[in-house]
């Protein structure tokens, strides 16, 4: 049965069961793209389409950050002309997009993933290697399973 959690409820009642890692997709070169393949561990937790949409949106953001075109050339030439001292006071285009990405991930976590007992970690915190998805188990379900084991072990517990 799907457990409905807000982020606060997750904090109080859930425990980490496992983590799933969505790896990078290098088929387009060294640009930052993630595989849209649906991990089997998430089969029962989230709809395939939602997950794929998240990953595709993230891929779109990264493509935008790394796009080489008019504005990036302008930024590069300006930076070069100032012997790159301009980086001391200006935020690069890439950094701006990364901020957008982190907002998007937080929003996705609040709206979609936390209610399903999942949590996305920003790839930036993992060296842009993986999207780490933490899967949480509901403590209510773990409580019921523990009472099952307690009955089996208490029978022989006296001998311990």
């Amino acid at each position, binding site marked *: 049965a799907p457990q409905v959690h807000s*982020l606060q409820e997750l904090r109080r009642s859930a425990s980490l069961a496992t*983590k799933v890692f969505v790896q990078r997709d290098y088929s*387009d070169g060294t640009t930052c793209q993630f595989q849209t393949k649906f991990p089997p561990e998430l089969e029962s937790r989230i709809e395939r389409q939602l997950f794929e949409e998240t990953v595709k949106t993230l891929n779109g953001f990264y493509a935008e950050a*790394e796009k080489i075109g008019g504005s990036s050339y302008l930024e590069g030439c300006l930076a070069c002309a100032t012997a790159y001292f301009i980086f001391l006071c200006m935020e690069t285009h890439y950094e701006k997009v990364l901020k957008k990405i982190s907002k998007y991930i937080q929003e996705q976590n609040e709206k979609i993933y936390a209610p399903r007992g999942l*949590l996305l970690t920003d790839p930036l915190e993992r060296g842009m290697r993986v999207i780490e998805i933490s899967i949480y188990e509901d403590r209510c379900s773990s409580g019921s399973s523990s009472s099952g*084991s307690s009955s089996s072990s208490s029978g022989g517990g006296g001998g311990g």
Partner: protein
Amino acid sequence: MTPGGGSGPMKDCEYSQISTHSSSSPMESPHKKKKSAPKRKWEVFPGRNKFFCNGRIMMARQTGVFYLTLVLILVTSGLFFAFDCPYLSEKITPAIPAIGGILFFFVMGTLLRTSFSDPGVLPRATPDEAADLERQIDIANGSSSGGYRPPPRTKEVIINGQTVKLKYCFTCKIFRPPRASHCSLCDNCVERFDHHCPWVGNCVGKRNYRFFYMFILSLSFLTVFIFAFVITHVILRSQQTGFLNALKDSPARYPFTETNSRSSVVCFFSVWSIVGLSGFHTYLISSNQTTNEDIKGSWSNKRGKENYNPYSYGNIFTNCCAALCGPLSPSLIDRRGFIQPDTPQLAGPSNGITMYGATQSQSNMCDQDQCIQSTKFVLQAAATPLLQSEPSITSEELPLPGKTTISGPCASLTLGQPTPPSSMPNLTSDTGLTDMIPLKEEHEGHQFLTPEEAPSPPGMLPSGSPITHSHTMHILSLASQDSLHEDSVRGLVKLSSV
């Protein structure tokens, strides 16, 4: 008096006592692990780098040659500005020292940027990631890893029609992205690794390649500039006073010839080497290759007619623009960030160099190690029943070489560490959270199992042996849940506070 019935409620009382004790001071155990001053990530960085200005500046370990570079540039330019420029600005135009000054400023700026910035170091895998990768590799290989290191792991990827092999880095525990390479001097994997340059005291990689190129380009212009105008100066002087007289008169009143000759000598040799290097890198940029690839001949036609560079954009102009004016990716290692108590620490250091001086990071490693081990137990139990658990767990010991100061809960779950049974209650008290009944059952379960698990290997704790029992996997998942509980709660608190 029934043992089962009598001991049950008694045991309940015992555990509830423990629970009230621990719940009254829930922050006690994390408090033990926290150091008084929060550490920044650069202080526990596992690579061989030197950091200055509280993490703002990052260089390789050997910086002697970098200081030599600085001295050469400063002295040569200094001599030029002091002795040649006054004469030349009078005689020809004051634009000469002005242009010289701009070039010098540009050279110094790009040199410092190249030397001090992060070349594109890839942070090492977190223990969870490393465990996940190991598991995937084991499944792919279809065999248990045994006690020896398995054969080198590679993944193949097709990029723009060209097959590229991704190698697994044993130090960083990651599959290296294409064009990344592990620098043995800095002990880091660097993205788009070009080479390690001792002259700038740093690796040259994705993030600082354009600074490096601008440095050698501007330095070529500067050395040619200085060389040309020193020669001009000597010629002009000699026209005035006669060439030989100019040289003769020098030491006493006109030290310019000595300094000039020194400048000239330095410049002469520099010109050829620096200009040559600039030319070489111009070629590399226009064909979008790295020095590493060029030296190995990765994309040369000699390897095969079908071999071509999949990263090239096709034309020289786009390649140059992409390399020099493309977007600058941010540093992935977050040197100045603070270590969060629940943040997973990086994979263990190589070559026996221990960077984990802080007990905080040790205990962080422990928490995450518990995480991995428990997760791995569950996964392994599901995937391969009755597998020898010891060898596969040995691989998990790598992150914790020879640590003796691990706190109680760690020791109870970390294998290979001799642990007295009295450490088990530590586990229950240190988690410091509610939900006592499963803890009690876990404790009993472990006690129940210990005498049963006679053939368990030495140093193996009860938490290791239950792998071989299907029903104990149940208890194991409890153990993992409870031991991870504290960790996950802290993690959630941190994550939700983002």
